[in-house]
């Protein structure tokens, strides 16, 4: 395929799976994508991870979903077309696309490599493009994106297990770096051993950080310690264990998105410790001011990371051989996978084999 210059009016046909309503049930969907603009690349999707956010959006839990909705923001693919001004990529490059595909590019956040915190950041799916059209995500055969919002995947990273890094990976990497939890003299707790939690353990070990998994599911202990290499496993519902662990952690990354009590987590922190929340629930948390004041503790939020940091994270993962534990599925298994995800029945990320199984679902 040639490099394209200028804009053409006709769109390019696309095929994927979409939900048509808040039942969240996905089925084949023919749609179109724009022509590749000067600074954009067209990416043939090879794999797409299933993130818990996909589930939240499909079911309209955040009351902001527009249907038909094509989810997917853990995309790994191959560049099939390049705009005339593209400088970062060549045809055939393996690239990743994560949770955002645009931002304002002029605000302080954008200028400081924090496009994810730009108030005008545009989500890869269900977000509104600046031309007013709704974005469709990675449960599809290709995507068109400005090169700024794509990252290069080094050839040493297996593609399918790299997909979850685009959301889960950066969501854990960024706060561990920003809040000073990456390093041999630090002890981090990770709450929840799911898509984000398990990758967090791997990044922590690569940083040399001591890591304790905090979970209500005792059955995950073996995995945490043996497969993932965590230093400890703390059962959050065991009062004695929790008490013994009080004041031992420099930071805690909480990946649990459902409503839960955070007071016991604050107790696990050392003085000056930080609790970083990644999941956002609608219902506010109740915390006692004392629990923060005594010991100068803090609670912060974090959400994915900027594009430069995402590339840094991918390169770090390649260097240290960090990949997600995945279950590869065919496109037509996706509804079952979503149901299983809702029950936490996955170790630890579903990844859709788009390249080999999507086309066959088109009747």
């Amino acid at each position, binding site marked *: 395929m040639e490099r394209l210059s200028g804009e053409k009016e006709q769109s390019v046909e696309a095929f994927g799976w979409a939900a048509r309503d808040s039942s969240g049930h996905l089925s084949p969907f023919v749609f179109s994508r724009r022509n590749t603009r000067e600074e954009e690349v067209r990416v043939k999707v090879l794999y797409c991870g299933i993130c818990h956010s996909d589930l939240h959006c499909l079911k309209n839990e955040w009351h902001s979903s527009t249907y038909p909705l094509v989810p997917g923001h853990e995309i790994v693919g191959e560049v099939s077309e390049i705009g005339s001004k593209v400088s970062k990529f060549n045809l055939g490059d393996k690239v990743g696309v994560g949770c955002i595909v645009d931002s304002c590019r002029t605000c302080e956040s954008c200028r400081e490599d924090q496009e994810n915190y730009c108030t005008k950041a545009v989500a890869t799916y269900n977000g509104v493009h600046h031309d007013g059209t709704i974005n469709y995500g990675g449960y599809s055969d290709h995507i068109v994106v400005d090169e700024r919002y794509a990252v290069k995947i080094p050839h040493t990273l297996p593609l399918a297990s790299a997909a979850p890094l685009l959301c889960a990976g950066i969501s854990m990497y960024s706060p561990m770096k920003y809040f000073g939890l990456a390093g041999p003299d630090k002890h981090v707790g990770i709450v929840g051993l799911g898509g984000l939690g398990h990758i967090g353990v791997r990044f922590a070990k690569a940083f040399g950080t001591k890591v304790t998994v905090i979970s209500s599911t005792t059955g995950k202990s073996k995995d945490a310690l043996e497969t993932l290499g965590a230093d400890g496993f703390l059962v959050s519902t065991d009062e004695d264990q929790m008490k013994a662990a009080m004041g031992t952690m420099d930071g805690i990354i909480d990946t649990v998105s459902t409503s839960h009590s955070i007071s016991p987590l604050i107790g696990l922190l050392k003085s000056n410790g930080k609790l970083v929340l990644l*999941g956002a*629930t609608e219902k506010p948390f*109740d915390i*006692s001011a004392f629990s*923060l*004041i005594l*010991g*100068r503790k803090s*609670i912060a939020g974090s959400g994915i990371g900027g594009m430069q940091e995402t590339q840094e994270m991918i390169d770090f993962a390649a260097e240290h051989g960090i990949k997600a534990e995945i279950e590869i599925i065919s496109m037509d298994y996706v509804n079952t996978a979503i149901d299983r995800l809702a029950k936490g029945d996955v170790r630890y990320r579903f990844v859709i084999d788009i390249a080999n199984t999507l086309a066959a679902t088109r009747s």
Partner: protein
Amino acid sequence: MHHSLEIITLHKPQSLTQTKTETETMAKSPETEHPNKVFGWGARDKSGVLSPFHFSRRDNGENDVTVKILFCGVCHTDLHTIKNDWGYTYYPVVPGHEIVGIATKVGKNVTKFKEGDRVGVGVITGSCQSCESCDQDLENYCPQMSFTYNAIGSDGTKNYGGYSENIVVDQRFVLRFPENLPSDSGAPLLCAGITVYSPMKYYGMTEAGKHLGVAGLGGLGHVAVKIGKAFGLKVTVISSSSKKEEEAINHLGADSFLVTTDPQKMKAAIGTMDYIIDTISAVHALYPLLGLLKVNGKLIALGLPEKPLELPMFPLVLGRKMVGGSDVGGLKETQEMLDFCAKHNITADIELIKMDEINSAMERLAKSDVRYRFVIDVANSLSPP
């Protein structure tokens, strides 16, 4: 209440394991517990009414300084404590932890002070002196730290605070009062001052030109404005009513004043502040304050209401914002703060009262009717009956 108790137990065992020691000392009355009779004012129950109270203090030990009290500031913590708002007051309680006085005795190991020195005693009068926190001059975060009042001191007996004639304190917990800092208007710095100064330093709020919001304009808030200006910050006072606006701008030097009940002004101020020092002592909504912060902004919650705070998550995640706490400061930092305030002529705005006016002062404090700290003229008005 129980929740607060839990937290206190876990962090300050000295204060709550009353059991055997307390029973033993309860057998002796407050007056006979120690060799030296002292007079002060104390509260006996959660009505919080303060009245003359006779008790006693230890002899001046080798490491101790005895301080004849001249002035004592009235902190909102005193009010919370006498009313048992937090559920762990052990009556009778003598409050007061913003103490300025004269050293009348110094023990033989005392090197930092001599008789006649003007000194201060703040919120903390004991710590283990050997843990990591203590080694880093962070006695305020020592798990064995004991408060100036309503806590068990290192001798195993209850501490009584500064609404009294004198106090006996280990030299480590005594502060030198700088020459040009007045005793009366300098007293509130010992709690209010350090409570805002410490987080402002720790959380990096000292970069000239950055924008600080100060929520609540009381004892802590008004000192935060003055210290913020001394750091070269742009300061906006955030308040629920406009009645303090003129004074905030013209007298305290704030750059602007934001009324939280004005939706248009609040909307215009969204995402404009690098940090917020939240000094509001009552339960209040954090959501609108978090909205005022820029991305990566920090809100430091210093007020201690008796009910939990409601912490909304979305603002934190969407802007990587942070809510943190801070607990006074270590002794070294408290001295640094006093010296800083002396250098920049920062004192509290006070209303001097007599000891026997304390109950009506407490009533007014409960309604925030003070500009901005009551200070008891102890030396001139505390007269034993």
